[in-house]
């Protein structure tokens, strides 16, 4: 088996694939890329058992067929060093030795048997839906930061995808903050929902961000989902378990409404948070009239900060505390110039909306739980 391919083309694909690889694996074969040639087409696979990604490429020249597993690290490191030149791969069928020729250089490394590489799961009973790549990129960008890390609650470590007949909803929460991203221009024929793990989400987000016009074909069943677009196919195992009932925790009656410039609030919050306790990052929001006063203190170091912002506010004066980290993450993940914070009471959730969203098909809701201030 032999093929010739330009180094940059190969490197781009390998780098995209490398996101799937774990830094330490129990199965040594998972440190490899699987190379496979069928009908003049090269398929490269990376897998961590949970997520498997396959990229197909057309090499400049192909002789013979077959498959071999090649150590990923050494291949990536080598490819990074080349300028854009053609590279010849020659694999010895007998001993699986891989010989790479590039320019004046000649490199040799030992390949591994391809049958050790994990097989792709066979999907039965699948549903199929087509989604605009831009929808997925936005949905994943807006939600993935809010996922949890608690091993005891695996469902919350992923993003819930709800496909409905008139909209799609993507939800992430760690029980302290929650994001609900809804699109009315993405629909599915059948109602369905599943929880997608963080890793394929980040992977898809990165790859799709440069391919926003593509159509992504999503096939899924109870246990797995497959994303297919251009020359990429990604198979990922879904997170099992029940997602918490998120709609129930979004308060419906929020008479206190604060509208404020997002960048101004974010800037002040960043500054004030420097003076907050560095373990709890708590910042106090005091809203009176048309004024928002942010304050924080760290008694251990006698640090104290207070900053006043003008805002527009309707409702009763209110004092509420938030973990500034959560709040900053939310503000960072919105790209609108103004936001609205709706609250009902100091012990109940605050809800963040963008004001004047230009995209009519988009509905973003972010929720953050306060800290229980002493009265």
């Amino acid at each position: 088996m032999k093929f010739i391919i330009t180094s940059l083309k190969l490197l781009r694909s390998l780098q995209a694939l490398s996101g799937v690889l774990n830094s330490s694996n129990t199965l040594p074969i998972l440190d490899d890329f699987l190379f496979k040639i069928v009908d003049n087409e090269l398929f490269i696979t990376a897998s961590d058992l949970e997520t498997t990604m396959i990229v197909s490429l057309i090499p400049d020249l192909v002789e013979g067929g077959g498959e071999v597993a090649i150590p990923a690290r050494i291949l990536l490191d080598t490819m990074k060093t080349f300028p854009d030149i053609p590279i010849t791969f020659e694999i010895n069928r007998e001993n699986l030795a891989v010989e790479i020729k590039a320019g004046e250089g000649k490199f040799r490394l030992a390949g591994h048997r391809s049958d050790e590489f994990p097989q792709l799961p066979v999907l039965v009973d699948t549903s199929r839906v087509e989604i605009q790549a831009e929808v997925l990129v936005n949905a994943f960008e807006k939600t993935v930061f809010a996922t949890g890390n608690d091993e005891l609650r695996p469902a919350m470590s992923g993003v819930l995808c709800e496909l409905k007949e008139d909209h799609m909803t993507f939800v992430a929460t760690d029980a302290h903050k929650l994001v609900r991203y809804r699109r009315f221009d993405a629909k599915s024929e059948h109602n369905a929902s599943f929880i997608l793990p963080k890793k394929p989400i980040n992977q898809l987000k990165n790859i799709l961000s440069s391919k926003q016009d593509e159509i992504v074909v999503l096939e899924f069943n109870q246990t797995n989902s497959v994303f297919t677009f251009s020359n990429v196919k990604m198979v990922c195992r879904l997170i099992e378990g029940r997602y918490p009932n998120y709609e129930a925790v979004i308060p419906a009656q929020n008479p206190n409404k604060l509208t404020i410039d997002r960048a101004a609030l974010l800037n002040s919050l960043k500054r004030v948070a420097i003076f907050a306790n560095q373990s709890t990052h708590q910042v106090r929001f005091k809203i009176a009239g048309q004024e928002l006063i942010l304050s924080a203190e760290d008694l251990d170091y006698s640090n104290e900060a207070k900053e006043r912002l003008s805002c527009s506010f309707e409702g009763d004066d209110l004092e509420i505390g938030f973990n500034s980290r959560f709040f900053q993450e939310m503000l960072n993940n919105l790209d609108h110039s103004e936001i609205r914070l709706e609250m009902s009471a100091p012990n109940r959730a605050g809800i963040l909306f963008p004001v004047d969203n230009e995209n009519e098909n988009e509905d973003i809701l972010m929720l953050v739980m306060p800290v229980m201030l002493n009265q």
Partner: protein
Amino acid sequence: MERTIVHMDLDTFFVSVERLINPSLEGKPVIIGGTSDRGVVASCSYEARRFGVHSAMPMRMAKQLCSQAVYVRGDMELYTRYSRLVTDVIAESAPVYEKTSVDEHYLDLTGMDRFFGCYKWTHELRQRIIKHTGLPISFGLSANKTVSKIATGQAKPNGELQVLSTQVNSFLDPLSIRKIPMVGEVGYRLLRSMGVATIGTLRLVPPVMIEQVLGKNGIVIWRKANGIDPTPVKPYTEQKSISSEHTYEQDTTDIMQLRQTISAIVEKLAFEMRSKEKLTGCVTVKIRYANFDTHSQQKQIPYTAFDHILLDTVLGLFGKLYNRRMLIRLVGVRFSHLVGGSQQLNMFEDTPEIANLYQTMDSIRRRFGKDAVVRAGGISSEKIKVKR
């Protein structure tokens, strides 16, 4: 560089506070400690010491030695308040100070002699403390913590003593090795059996020999005998943990009772944390069996100050810890890794009702006293104290 370290110690602190409140105790032997049979002496007046009573002695023995003494239960909260008064006066003027216990402070005055004269300055500070608080206090002034502390011991009661760096050895040599802070009952007996009675003798013993007898600590003790102690005065830092333990009147295996005690301890500690706007990140449970075998286990948790979360964790640890069917003498709970902040609410677990319940219960406690409202599961006949 030569340092100047002051050790200040309040004389029979608990007794002094009690006398301040009740002047009729003046001149009488006073003993403070748990009044039950199993309590120990926490503090006693000089009059009581004449009868052979000393702190940490079982109460029963103290009663035999000195039946005419006035026995006081002791009020830790009151003592803490007075202790803080003293600390406040020191903090006002001292450049660096360390509070090592409720009645002891170390001050680092290095470099101040060029401007003030350390002895004069400390003397004035002592007078200020006596004037502000009405409590007798003694101090020792020397080149390091150990010598200063020993000097304070010699200066007591109500005195002051300076040991210049040139006089350190001549000051220490004639004293008993008991005066060295690290030498306890066991170490004292061992050294005495070797024929070492005074610090001067100890100083001349080769350090290798002492290490053989007392282990690694032997070297430290030998250095102290030579007046060498490089430990710095660490500035007073925020409280890092809060704990409480309970010794039963009678050893018990009654799970219900044990859980009640634990529940009451957790509730009190958690309330105190919430009042001070603190959260804990680490929970430790300790049990002591009747034979004094002591075991403890700890667990890191996300920062919290909620009773129900802490109680779950603590009871879980207790369940793991209590695996021998033996009588228990003591249970204790410690919350450490304290950080400033308020409880982060969880959208799925903490309903607004729970948050409101905590706030209402806390405001009732603040208004009508800590015991005004408690969990039914924590009600028991025994009184639980909180200490740090």
